[in-house]
């Protein structure tokens, strides 16, 4: 009985959550304007209730999937009784309706987290922050209820079985990729809410940045992991070994990441030095707006992509209106309030302030580059000027040199001092690092490949230049205080170090895999063998296997190098019954310095041969490991001690008249 009404319960829970979000949006804000503590105190309980009811709705939907309730349209479209239970669970966010519910639930949980961990905020600030979060989620919940409820039923005659989850999404990487990405997207709403609350209160001092920083770092860490998982998934599931396609959907996640990276660094300047105040606020607005733009691009169906499963134009319009309102309202507020903020600041061209300024400029130029390449085709199309697509060469020719420039500042930045520094002193601190980096950059291509290569050297130079100067600080401390010296550096410093090393690792991965990979498309029969990149691939067997919801052709490929057996690989070509769709299941032998990649293309006419794609991908793991390291750096910085002394900040705030 209860099982049958679960979808209705879920729907009611969502409506209750909307009601609470509306109260949370309006009452505390009104309270903070009229100075009524009672009204302001509505914020926290509403945030809790909203999170509770959205969790209820989400659990109802998940249970519907587990119990195979195919009378619900969304479940019937995205699951099948033969689907294994874990994919039935991840199918909850496998389509449009469920993923927007997930988005909204995460939004509520960020609000909950803010209310728990920021209890020490001044009361009116907390009320305003939660009110802004409430407004965003109210908008989103109205969107879900009006256009994309996951609980719609197919009555009176429900289908006997579901259409199954898109086979591309039946993959462990895809279980975690969307939640991570959404955590990142949605997490930037917290920085946004703090920025707006600070604007409303006119209290744009360093305090709001200290509160906003850990939240921004956390959101950024999630987004980094989300993007890396997406790229990794595309690598083995979609892309025939490619790891980034400059697909509009990838770009949609990269843009908030770039803006968010700029925001993190700008927040550092505002907190430490009180500079860039209005700039930081603007970046917080831009970052969250780009998150919303990303959601719009992906969810509205304007893009041609695997992710674009919503083709209902009303949804696109709705999100566009939501985006317009958010951006319009926040920029209006900014326009009225920001000019009052003065940043009384002067700094030299070789100071850390200046380095971070260049970092911000470069990151934003990169963001605009991506934005232009992503939106240009959409704009031309909507103006009726023809359908175009912008190819990867556009992005590569612009992003690669910009990354090199960014890397130069990343090496310099951490060794500079705030405010003022003589160029001579900077050179004194950096010359040795420069020489070491140059040696690394020039010798490694020789050692690895036996030949000199300009692009590889350039990439490695940038990576080494980022890492080597970071050693200086701990070394000086060791010299001065002995082995316990490095412990004197704060966790946020080590967070920065980890993040930068992660970036360098990613650069190494990109450089090596772009320049040294081997790929070959071949015809293969049983017993046939080919040599790719110094490895010999032999197809030893070809048979059929039965999976829970598919039938597969499976090859066994033996990989040898000389006489040594390296790996036995089992690529598959799966055929999913419910959707009548074929899927390539790649076989990988991964290692720190190289991946061996075998994929079955298609059966050829003679009935025995297959078109196979065989690749050797050097250092490709470094790409994603680097991203994980960056995320770890972000999280380490959140754990910094000074964020735990917030109660003192509050006392200081309240002591002030």
């Amino acid at each position, binding site marked *: 009985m209860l099982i049958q009404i679960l979808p209705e319960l879920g729907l009611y829970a969502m409506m209750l959550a909307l009601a609470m979000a509306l109260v949370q949006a309006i009452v505390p804000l009104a309270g903070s304007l009229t100075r009524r503590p009672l009204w302001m105190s509505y914020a926290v309980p509403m945030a809790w209730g909203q999170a509770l009811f959205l969790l209820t709705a989400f659990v109802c939907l998940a249970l519907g999937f587990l119990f195979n309730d195919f009378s619900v349209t969304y479940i019937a479209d995205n699951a099948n009784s033969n689907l294994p239970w874990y994919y039935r669970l991840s199918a909850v966010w496998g389509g449009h309706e469920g993923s927007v519910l997930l988005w909204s639930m995460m939004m509520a949980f960020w609000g909950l987290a803010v209310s728990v961990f920021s209890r020490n905020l001044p009361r009116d600030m907390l009320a305003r922050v939660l009110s802004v979060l409430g407004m965003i989620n109210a908008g989103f919940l109205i969107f879900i209820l009006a256009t994309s409820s996951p609980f719609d039923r197919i009555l009176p005659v429900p289908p006997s079985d579901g259409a199954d989850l*898109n086979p591309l999404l039946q993959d462990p990487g895809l279980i975690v990729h969307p939640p991570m990405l959404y955590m990142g997207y949605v997490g930037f709403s917290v920085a946004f809410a703090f920025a707006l609350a600070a604007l409303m209160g006119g209290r744009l001092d360093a305090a709001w940045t200290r509160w906003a920083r850990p939240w921004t770092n956390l959101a950024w860490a999630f987004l980094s992991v989300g993007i890396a998982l997406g790229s990794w998934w595309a690598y083995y599931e*979609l892309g*025939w070994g490619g790891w980034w396609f400059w697909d509009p959907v990838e770009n949609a996640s990269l843009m908030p990441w770039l803006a968010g990276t700029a925001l993190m660094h700008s927040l550092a300047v505002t907190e430490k030095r009180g500079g860039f105040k209005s700039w930081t606020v603007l970046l917080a607005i831009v970052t969250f707006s780009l998150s919303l733009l990303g959601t719009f691009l992906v969810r509205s169906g304007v893009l*041609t992509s*695997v992710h674009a499963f919503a*083709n209902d134009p009303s949804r696109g319009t709705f999100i566009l209106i939501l985006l317009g309102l958010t951006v319009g309202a926040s920029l209006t507020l900014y326009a009225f309030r920001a000019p009052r903020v003065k940043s009384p600041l*002067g700094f030299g061209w070789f100071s850390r302030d200046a380095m971070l*300024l260049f970092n911000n*400029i470069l990151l934003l*130029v990169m963001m*605009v*580059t991506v934005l*232009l*390449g992503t939106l*240009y085709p959409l704009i031309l199309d909507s103006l009726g000027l*023809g*359908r*175009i*697509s*912008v*190819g*990867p*060469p*556009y992005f590569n*020719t*612009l992003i690669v040199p910009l990354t090199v420039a960014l890397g130069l500042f990343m090496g310099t930045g951490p060794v500079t001092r705030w405010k003022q520094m003589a160029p001579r002193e900077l050179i004194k601190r950096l010359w040795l690092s420069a020489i070491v980096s140059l040696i690394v950059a020039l010798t490694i291509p020789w050692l690895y490949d036996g030949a000199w290569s300009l692009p590889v050297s350039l990439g490695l130079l940038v990576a080494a230049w980022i890492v080597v100067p970071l050693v200086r600080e701990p070394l000086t401390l060791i010299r001065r205080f002995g082995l316990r010296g490095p412990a004197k550096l704060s966790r946020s410093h080590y967070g920065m170090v980890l993040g930068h090393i992660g970036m360098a690792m990613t650069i190494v991965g990109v450089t090596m895999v772009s320049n040294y990979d081997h790929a070959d*498309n*071949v*015809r293969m029969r049983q017993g046939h063998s080919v040599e790719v990149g110094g490895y010999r691939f032999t197809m030893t067997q070809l048979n059929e296997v039965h999976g829970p919801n598919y039938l597969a052709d499976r090859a066994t490929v033996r990989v040898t190098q000389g006489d040594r057996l390296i790996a036995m690989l089992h690529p598959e070509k799966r055929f999913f019954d419910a*959707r*009548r*769709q*074929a*899927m*390539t299941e790649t076989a990988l032998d991964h290692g720190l310095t190289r991946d061996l990649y075998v994929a079955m*293309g*298609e059966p*050829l*006419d*003679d009935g025995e041969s297959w*078109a196979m*794609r065989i690749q050797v991908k050097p250092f490709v793991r470094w790409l994603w490991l680097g991203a994980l390291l960056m995320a770890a750096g972000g999280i380490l910085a959140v754990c910094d001690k000074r964020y735990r002394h917030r109660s003192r900040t509050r006392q200081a705030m309240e002591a002030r008249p």
Partner: protein
Amino acid sequence: MKAHRRQRLTLIVVLVALAGVAIGLALYALRANMNLFYSPTQISAGQAPGGRSLRAGGVVRGNSVQRDQQTLDVTFTVTDFEHDVPVHYRGILPDLFREGQGVVIVGTLDERGWIEASEVLAKHDENYMPPEVDGALKAAEASRAIPSDAPAVADSRASGTP
């Protein structure tokens, strides 16, 4: 105070100059790497430029896919049910490539009127029609004079359009 202002002025001038250079470069790169979409009808009418990268699309004509027996060369025909364009490709076709399916091809047009494909895209589920192809089919349908052809097209589109 004056030094402060001068610094700000330098900063603004540098920023504007940098932004100008960046936008100029971006637009240049954009123009050089833009792939315009052409329908089979446009290609047959000679509207597509030869020798540079373009996108073309249509439905893969039934029984037109031919694989070479020794290599991975494959040829097929894309159509908007008005005009056909032959395509040559070397490599592995995507999982969702099938006769009767809408595909988008990135490649160049040679002198013989063939498209030499560098990429064949059909990565959506079978109910999905790439919007470009959908548009091309609709345009071809609108220009069609003979109505007796229509049911066949409607059938093939029924399986294609969402």
